[in-house]
């Protein structure tokens, strides 16, 4: 509805006032994370001109990188995000192509099953997955976490990729088949290059899902050096004492990668979102 209607001045003003209110509410916590991360331990509680950036310092950042295992958490998060999403995308490409283009018994009911499993929430699965990893000897191991991430990333990426494959016109593939290309050849030479944006999107969503995950890591990992960034944040909470400065410095670093990746895929975000990222 790209409207050509003219809006009256008061209604235009109201629109922008409401928009501005939404933007302020949506962004204030990020401002507060940033501001807190540049304040000293005492400075975070100073009430005088609390909202204004003053007396800023980098000492929290120096602290988290030199005295805390932040780089280790960063590495764990990055490795889990990359490996889990690459693995899911490969499984998703194979299954997606088979379900969309190949003719065999059960392919329709299978597509439904994927959606169903994708909607199953992790709060239902974390205890059985913990027991499974326990019996496999994978508790307190990043391998166990990687496996448990596949329980949401594989159905999610497969479902996304399935949708993109459906949107590619079948005629192109038929032409290649007539020219003597095999079915697997069609997948690699025609479908994959055409679906590349969709596959990159699935990869980025998969990466973000893993990067943001919290419940599986706190149930499966006990050692501080095996934690990821989101779970590592918890180590700045000791009973009722919060080290807000270092906590927010780490929080800011945790937020940057998903936001940068999101900018690349903003165009596809809506379709990806109705399929849903793992949260809500």
């Amino acid at each position, binding site marked *: *509805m790209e409207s050509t209607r003219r809006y009256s001045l008061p209604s235009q003003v109201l629109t922008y006032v409401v*928009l501005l209110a939404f933007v302020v509410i949506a962004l204030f*916590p990020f401002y507060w994370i940033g501001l807190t991360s540049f304040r000293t331990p005492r400075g975070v509680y100073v009430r005088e001109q609390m909202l204004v950036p003053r007396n800023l310092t980098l000492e929290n950042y120096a602290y988290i990188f030199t005295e805390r295992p932040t780089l280790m958490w960063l590495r764990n998060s990055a490795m889990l995000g990359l490996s889990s999403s690459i693995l899911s995308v490969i*499984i998703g490409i*194979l299954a997606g192509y*088979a379900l969309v283009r190949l003719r065999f018994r059960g392919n329709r009911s299978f597509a439904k099953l994927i959606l169903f499993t994708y909607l199953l*929430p992790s709060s239902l699965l974390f205890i059985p997955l913990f027991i*499974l990893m326990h019996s496999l000897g994978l508790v307190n191991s990043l391998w166990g976490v990687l496996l448990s991430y596949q329980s949401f990333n594989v159905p999610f990426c497969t479902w996304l990729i399935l949708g993109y494959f459906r949107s590619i016109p079948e005629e192109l593939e038929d032409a290649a088949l007539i020219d003597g290309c095999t079915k697997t050849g069609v997948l690699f030479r025609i479908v994959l290059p055409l679906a590349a944006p969709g596959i990159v999107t699935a990869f980025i969503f998969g990466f973000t899902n893993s990067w943001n995950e919290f419940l599986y890591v706190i149930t499966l990992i006990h050692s501080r050096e095996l934690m990821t960034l989101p779970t590592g944040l918890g180590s700045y909470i000791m009973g009722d004492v919060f080290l807000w400065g270092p906590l927010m410095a780490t929080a800011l670093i945790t937020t940057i990668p998903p936001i940068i990746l999101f900018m690349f895929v903003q165009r596809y975000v809506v379709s990806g979102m109705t399929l849903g990222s793992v949260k809500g």
Partner: protein
Amino acid sequence: MQTAYATTAQRPSLARALRQWLGADFALGYLMLLPLVVVLFGLLAYPTISALSITLQDKTIGLPGRFIGLQNYYQLLFKDPIFWRVVQNGFIFTIGSVSLKLVLGMTIALVLNRRIVLRGFFRGLILMPWVAPTVVTALAWRWILDLMGVLNYILTNIGILKLPVPWLAKYGPAMFSLIMVNAWRGFPFFGVTLLAGMQTIPLELYEAAEVDGASAWQRFWHITLPSLRTVLLVVTILSTIWTFNDFSIVWLLTRGGPVNATDVFATYTYKLGFETSRLGYGETVSVILAPVLIGIILILSPLMLRRESE
């Protein structure tokens, strides 16, 4: 397909029978599905079945469980007052958050659907709460809502509050805060999805209505809302599933406290399973509420499949 069969007439008849029964590409098809099947079975089906069997045992961390029949279910339903508190909390939290998200999301969608400058830019900004890791934003809110935090600072300074409120430490304010934070986090999803839905409504409908003298409210009620019916249903049900199962926000803001005042079913399951190490009893909480959830999913999936094929 007929031509394909003609050229393979000399093949062994078993393969031909299989192809006829299982479909032309069955071998390659099943091969390509194999990794997915392994994941679905190993990481979803098997754990689900084992979840059911755990609830019939007194399983604790590190010890094998003994079969105790339906004792966990009996205890949970009839001997555990906290469970009923959790169910009640879950409904208050879910209904409160989802309706707030719906209202906020619809408002921002209507605003963004008007002719405004830099729409894409503003849409991106509004999406930030949704894109950032939940753990990060939940902890940011924990700090904002702290007794010494900035919200109390602002509200006491402009005279709305005389004394700072312990937002997360009293029953009423704690549940209220959780609903607010969950709505803050989730409203962009509603907003952007509804906006996308609005942009597919043909402009002619509005022009015709305007010619007929329909007011802005009538246009919204008789054109926008009915056109968004499926989208609204899908986002509402999706969000209901996610909110009902929320763990991070509740856990990081209140830990289900004070006492069990804000425990929802994911945090209660976690506490039973990992703080008192009663895995069997904890999983019973999940399993007992699963039928509700599966019911919701079964309503949702056909809707999403229909949208997918449109």
